[in-house]
């Protein structure tokens, strides 16, 4: 497994772990009827800190394991694989942005999006974008891993 592929795996695992925890906490607070704007802000702050911390620590571990290739620059195949991943991610993210705009323009739809969550509309739109951005990142990393595994 190349340094680049290992790095993508780490980013994917960190991303899934962090956001799985985030939405797990949101669900717990929601069930306990303690889901407030302040609680969401605190959780988002935790996500930012955890993302920075995990990415730095895990990337350092990869460098220690595979220090020969740590300074390796992307070659043309890496760039093509990245582009393919980004293309699929862009499609998914575009759908999310379109839905968020649609939701903002037609606020009456709020009863269909997160209907039981008692948060301001801006937070619901934000979470709609977060969910699609998260899905886009997962698709991007997964596509890259697929092409590195299968060959490109």
């Amino acid at each position, binding site marked *: 497994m*190349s340094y680049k*592929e290992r790095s993508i795996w780490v980013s994917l695992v960190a991303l899934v772990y962090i956001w799985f925890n985030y939405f797990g906490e949101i669900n717990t607070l929601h069930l306990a009827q303690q889901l407030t704007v302040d609680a969401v802000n605190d959780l988002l702050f935790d996500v930012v800190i955890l993302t920075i911390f995990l990415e730095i620590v895990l990337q350092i571990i990869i460098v220690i394991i595979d220090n020969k*290739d740590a300074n390796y620059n992307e070659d*043309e*195949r*890496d760039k093509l694989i990245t582009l393919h991943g980004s293309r699929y991610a862009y499609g998914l993210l575009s759908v999310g942005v379109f839905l968020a705009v649609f939701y903002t323009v037609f606020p009456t739809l709020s009863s269909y999006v997160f209907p039981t969550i008692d948060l301001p509309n801006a937070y619901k739109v934000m979470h709609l974008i977060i969910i699609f951005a998260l899905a886009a990142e997962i698709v991007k990393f997964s596509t890259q891993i697929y092409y*590195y595994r299968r*060959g490109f």
Partner: protein
Amino acid sequence: MAKMIINTIRRLRFDHDEMTQKALADAVGVSRQTIVAIEKGKYSPSLEVAFKIADVFTINIEQVFQYKIEDNS
């Protein structure tokens, strides 16, 4: 039958004092994984990389890459 790009990199490496994939990758400026992918026919390199590979072995590009029906025999 469809034509495809095939290459003789593996044999050329062998003929050049069993040059390693890593050594070829370093000479061309790509990763070893990219050389592996090219050798297996899973990735068709850019013209620039193709010329660089030919240059490493000091031969013409058509001696490294051919566009023809693959002979599996």
